[in-house]
């Protein structure tokens, strides 16, 4: 177990190096990987909730909040280093308010309430047409990164670095959090919630902490996606976007913090390759990949990696 945890760090570094190399060698991949890393961060939040046995079908809400926060604030605060924390704060605040409400609910009720709230936000983005431009979306104006006005590929690199930095930061944070008493109490919510009450611990507060953390992560992910695509639309908040996050979480495997990133990279690349092969049936291919993973590798991609490592260690 300890060995695996150490191997996890090594693999994370290797993976980061591979991603940098790929981004360096192939310019278009840099963008795809930036988005994949950002989604990985959002999925990390989903993973925290999955630990407690809860599936949110509405976390695209926070991705969209982070993205729109960037789009709305960028004209006034055109600096990435400020926009990112601002997006995190916005997502965190909304996450706290919503979390206080939804942390009372479990299973389908938890999942559907999240879905409902994200769909209400989606509608608001559409309805407030004169502010949000509806489905046309808002263009993110040029922003500086650490005071540097960057353009073209140097800007892309900066956003990529930001995504990678966030992935590492939140990866470590989530790892520490999951190993901590609160993180362990999350899994206890899944298996025997009432016992927590009889030990004097509020399951609701434990879940709330994970919920707020996941909202912040999704908000940061949304901010990076906004900075990378430079255009935000309400589709970011649609329920299918939330479904995609859960999809990636399961694809990558909920067993470790690397799962979300393996899942996100695989998801984006499979979609690109599938779309390049059969542009109008990529959904079918993605669906088939997910089915195969669930049926034959239940721990997801990280589960496969971990099993390999375990075997090598044993041999």
């Amino acid at each position, binding site marked *: 177990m300890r060995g695996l945890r150490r191997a996890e760090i090594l693999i994370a570094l290797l993976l980061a190096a591979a991603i940098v190399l790929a981004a360096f060698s192939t310019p278009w991949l840099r963008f795809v990987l930036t988005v994949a890393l950002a989604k990985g961060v959002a999925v990390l939040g989903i993973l925290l909730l*999955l630990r407690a*046995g809860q*599936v949110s*079908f509405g976390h695209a809400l926070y991705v969209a909040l982070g993205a729109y926060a960037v789009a709305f604030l960028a004209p006034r605060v055109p600096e990435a280093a400020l926009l990112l924390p601002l997006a995190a704060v916005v997502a965190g605040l909304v996450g706290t308010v919503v979390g206080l409400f939804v942390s*009372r*609910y479990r*299973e*389908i*009720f938890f*999942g*559907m*309430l999240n*879905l*409902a*709230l994200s*769909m*209400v936000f989606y*509608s608001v983005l559409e*309805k407030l047409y004169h502010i949000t431009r509806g489905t046309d979306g808002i263009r993110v104006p040029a922003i500086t990164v650490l005071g540097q006005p960057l353009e073209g590929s140097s800007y892309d690199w900066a956003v990529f670095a930001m995504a990678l930095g966030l992935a590492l930061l939140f990866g470590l944070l989530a790892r520490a959090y999951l190993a901590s008493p609160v993180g362990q109490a999350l899994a206890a919510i899944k298996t025997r*919630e*009432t016992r927590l009450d009889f030990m004097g611990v509020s399951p609701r507060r434990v879940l709330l902490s994970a919920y707020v953390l996941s909202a912040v992560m999704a908000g940061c992910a949304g901010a990076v996606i906004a900075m990378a695509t430079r255009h935000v639309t309400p589709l970011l908040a649609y*329920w*299918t976007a939330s*479904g995609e996050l*859960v*999809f990636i*979480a*399961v694809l990558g495997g909920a067993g470790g913090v690397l799962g979300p990133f393996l899942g996100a990279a695989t998801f984006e690349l499979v979609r690109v390759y599938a779309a390049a092969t059969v542009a*109008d*049936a990529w*959904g*079918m291919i*993605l*669906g*088939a990949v*997910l*089915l195969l993973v*669930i*049926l034959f590798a*239940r721990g997801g991609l990280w589960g496969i990696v971990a099993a390999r490592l375990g075997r090598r260690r044993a041999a």
Partner: protein
Amino acid sequence: MGEWFEQNGALLGLALLDGIASAALIFMVAVGLNLVFGVLRVLNVAHGSFFAIGGYMAASIGLLMTAVGLPPWASFAALLLAAVVTGAILGPLIERFLLRRVYAEESVLQLLVTFALFMILEDLQKIVWGVQPVSFGGPVALMGTVDVPFAGDVIPYNAYQVILLPVVALLTLGGLAWFLRRTLAGRVIVAVTLDREAATAMGIDAGRVFLLTFTFGAVLAALGGALSAPTASLVPGVGASTIVLSFAVVATAGLGQIEGAALTALMIGIGRSVAVTFEPELEVVVPYLIMVAVLLLRPQGLFGVPETRRI
């Protein structure tokens, strides 16, 4: 208030008629999902695909029947046939070869299996039926309209929508209630819904109950799709919007509750048509607002039994 009613009472009445008609369709789809969820505890995303395929199938069969010169009333048979064919083929296949393999897994995995299936079926529909809107208006034309008096005038309504659909929904509700309470098979299903462990411990073959329920749910979804084909055009993505709405109904109604599904469908249907009449911008969020409001007051859903946390 009284004055408002005097001015708008008649409008409200019209909205109620529309609401009931749309509630009937919502109910048909959602009740199947709720039944399946109650028994299998699997939130079946592919339910939306069953709806879409049922609709497409109804249009295809209906148009075929018209083409070979069958009498017009046969188009009603087409709707039923489409539902049964779709549900009876897809349901058992999916339950046997996919769901059965993941019953022991965490619920998120079960859900994702159906999500993956939904993505696959979505593209299959495009391959089979293309992307152009498909519809089949036969039954509506056949039944004609009924005129509802309004402000010295009449408002024509489709008899199909305001008479046939509610009647079918009521028959389904009544039939289901009778089946679940009065027949052995139905009681077995209820027993499994309430307490799966206890039911299997009593010797109930859960596998068969699951298969039957899932197939039945699939038929109901396909019937919902088939019944909507005469009034709506089917396009890619129609299954997706159906399933979100049905999810909202299930969460609001309470686990496996058919009366809950009926009441929720009615609230959503009427809520939406009232919104269209008086505050159109609210229409889209009505189902979600109803769900949030209901769960605030009744955390287990309208008819949900609070699950005793056993210790």
